[in-house]
């Protein structure tokens, strides 16, 4: 659905992913004429590109990504995410060879992108957790990064708003570091998870294990009915697209809601190369976009501009909007544009057998695992690092009916290997909060450009000693949790202590246009409005001043909805 009949709008939203969808919905519902620009192709919902109704044997190449792509160095980074690198949803991920970026050879950065209408909201992990006041206090407390200018109470009503619309399942667990929200009924734990969680309540009461909270509808949800969204069928095929619309995405929920207002225009296949700045008015007046089909350029005008291109792409766009008045990038009087790039990091954890449940079985494929929220906000005695971490994981049933993974042995020997041990095995994987480092930066490459002549984004980031120490402690804690939970044959997952901590592996890259009260040290204010330009907003992960440990999408959504209403208010009041 591309339309170019009109080029003057009240608001322009760059990007149609999880935050762009929210901004578009809220602004349209406030009565603004909104243009959403998406660099990728159009997708309908449900889409012919969805493969969720194909059985394993019906999938093209049985889900194996064509080998010749690897031989030609395609999908170089996505290939490292082996659980994601699947042919049935490869169409929803970007090939680095087509959309290159750069990094120092010894400090790789993993940038997972989705260039289509809906962006990465089609393939996100759907886990939704509110941040607590402890998360917003972190920078102020230890002096790293830009202090957050907002707190939990500022966001709480917006969390409620987005949860009520998206449909988030979960328990009211009553955990200080993980505020409860507006929940649909939770997914159930497996017998093994239940047993471990019960043991932990007794043995490690400060480290509760709960069922994950996620944006898959677990019951009839009135706000979703208008868009034909149905209840999750426990297929665990979310990344293939969901014809039921059972998980929240901008394609299934916010964009349809925006369309219902009659105020939405969507233009796909349009890569925004820069934001247009009027020095006399000290305002942005629109954006310049390149049409993918023929390389032609079009300028779109709007009273306000929202950047929701995905953290790094929003930063990239601001940098590429440099001009005489702002040689180092738009909205960059602080010099902090591109600074403080963060991601959750992991690499450590543990797994163990769960005894005593060999006669218990699970049916269905649950779209979420268990969650152990960060219990290290306060520095514990065994910590030689700042900040903390949590865990995600699940208990898996051994599959006795098929030969196991590729390992030594053939025939009966291979089958026997898959059948050894108890029926259930539990795994925990650490999610750590890295410190915001000013010199973990994104910048424009000095010489390399893309097919449109736009300088490539250059990423120069890594986890430091603090993260390596935390990772080591994460492995120890995971072993302790599983042992205390009653597991046996517990195996520690611990990388070499000095192993490189690569950012981007969790697809939670954030920062680069951080929020702060001080215009000298941050890019946007507490309302996601750039300090330098009143009618320019950024409300995706770029504005995050710290990264916490909880999956950030719900916070992005709340920030975006709040920022959209603030912008609409200012526009109505004639202040923009």
């Amino acid at each position, binding site marked *: 659905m591309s339309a170019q009949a009109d080029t003057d709008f009240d608001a322009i939203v760059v990007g149609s992913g999880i935050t762009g969808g929210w901004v578009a919905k809220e602004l349209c519902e406030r009565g603004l004429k909104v243009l959403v620009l998406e660099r990728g192709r159009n997708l309908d919902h449900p889409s012919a590109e969805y493969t969720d*109704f194909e059985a394993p044997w019906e999938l093209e190449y049985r889900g*194996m990504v*064509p080998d010749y792509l690897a*031989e030609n160095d395609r999908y170089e980074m996505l290939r490292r995410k082996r659980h994601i690198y699947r042919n049935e949803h490869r169409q929803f991920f970007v090939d680095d060879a087509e959309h290159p970026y750069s990094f120092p050879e010894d400090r790789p950065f993993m940038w997972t992108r989705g260039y289509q209408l809906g962006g990465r909201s089609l393939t996100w992990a759907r886990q939704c957790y509110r941040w607590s006041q402890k998360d917003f206090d972190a920078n102020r407390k230890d002096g790293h990064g830009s202090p957050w200018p907002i707190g939990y109470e500022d966001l709480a009503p917006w969390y409620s708003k987005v949860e009520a619309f998206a449909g988030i399942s979960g328990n009211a667990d009553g955990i200080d570091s993980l505020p409860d929200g507006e929940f649909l009924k939770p997914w159930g*734990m497996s*017998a093994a998870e*239940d047993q471990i969680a019960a043991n932990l309540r007794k043995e490690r009461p400060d480290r509760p294990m709960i069922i994950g909270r996620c944006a898959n509808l677990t019951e009839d949800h009135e706000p979703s009915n208008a868009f034909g969204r149905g209840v999750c*069928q426990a297929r665990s095929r979310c990344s293939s697209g969901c014809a039921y619309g059972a998980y929240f995405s901008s394609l299934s929920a916010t964009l349809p809601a925006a369309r219902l207002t009659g105020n939405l225009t969507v233009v796909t296949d349009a890569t925004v190369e820069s934001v247009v700045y009027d020095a006399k008015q000290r305002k942005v007046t629109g954006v310049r976009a390149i049409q993918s089909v023929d390389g032609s350029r079009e300028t779109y005008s709007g009273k306000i501009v929202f950047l929701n291109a995905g953290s790094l792409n929003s930063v990239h766009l601001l940098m590429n909007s440099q001009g005489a008045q702002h040689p180092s990038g738009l909205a960059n009087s602080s010099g902090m544009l591109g600074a403080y790039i963060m991601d959750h990091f992991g690499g450590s954890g543990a797994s163990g057998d769960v005894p005593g449940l060999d006669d218990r079985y699970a049916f*269905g494929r649950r779209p979420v695992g268990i969650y152990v929220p960060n219990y290290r906000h306060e520095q514990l005695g065994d910590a030689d690092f700042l900040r903390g971490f949590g865990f995600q994981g699940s208990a898996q049933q051994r599959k006795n009916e098929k030969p196991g993974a590729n390992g030594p042995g053939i025939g*009966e020997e291979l089958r026997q290997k898959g059948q050894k041990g108890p029926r259930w095995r539990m795994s925990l994987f650490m999610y750590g909060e890295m410190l915001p480092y000013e010199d973990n930066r994104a910048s424009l490459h000095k010489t390399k450009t893309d097919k449109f002549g736009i300088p490539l984004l250059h990423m120069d980031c890594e986890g430091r000693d603090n993260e390596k120490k935390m990772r080591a402690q994460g492995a120890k804690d995971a072993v302790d949790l599983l042992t205390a939970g009653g597991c046996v044959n517990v195996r520690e997952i611990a990388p070499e202590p000095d192993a490189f901590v690569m950012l981007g592996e969790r697809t939670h890259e954030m920062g680069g246009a951080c929020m702060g009260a001080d215009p000298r040290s941050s890019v946007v204010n507490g309302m996601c409005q750039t300090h330098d330009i009143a009618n320019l907003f950024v409300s995706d992960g770029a504005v995050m001043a710290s990264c916490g440990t909880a999956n950030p999408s719900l916070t992005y959504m709340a920030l975006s909805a709040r920022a959209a209403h603030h912008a609409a208010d200012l526009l109505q009041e004639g202040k923009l």
Partner: protein
Amino acid sequence: MNDPVEIPPSSRRGFLGLCLAGGGSFGLAACGPGEVVCEIGNWALPVKPAGVFFDCLQMSVMSDAANLIVGEGEWPTADDAQVVTYLDQIFGEWAGPDLKMRMSRLPEHLDNFAVQQQGRAYVQLDQEMRSETLSRYDAAAFADRKDEANATYIEFKSLVLKIYNTSAEANRDFVLVPGEYIGNLSASEHLELVRAKALDFAG
């Protein structure tokens, strides 16, 4: 999608030379992709016709190896699940030139090992000896994954397992749309649900 790549004849010539030097005497002169004529007089393993990509020697050796890897019992064999037939069908467009080259030489690698271990070409060994040979080869391959021939075998085994484990035959209890998740069921309760909802329940 890339173009199918012809396998240079040198690999097969090399293979033949090696087998002959090792005492083998089977002939392959007229056996190519799309052709079914193999001189199989002294083969001990079941002969498969040439496929779309692989010739009859490759199809026969790979099918035999796949059956031994998957094994026989109360489950479908690799042949039942059409593992190598499927691999052959997709290989021309799915595999890259390097993998095509490597995989086409798998029979040669197995044969080298068989000659070394048993004094005869792989195709000339009876089933028990082939099973013993493949089992040893498998152990040797995983003990030294860097060796190119071993790596090729491990790639082949990985493909066999992926194709087998995603086949309809190996997934007779697959439930495409469970509709719900229940994490704590007895065996009989679980079976009842699977029976009610599986696409092709096999009991």
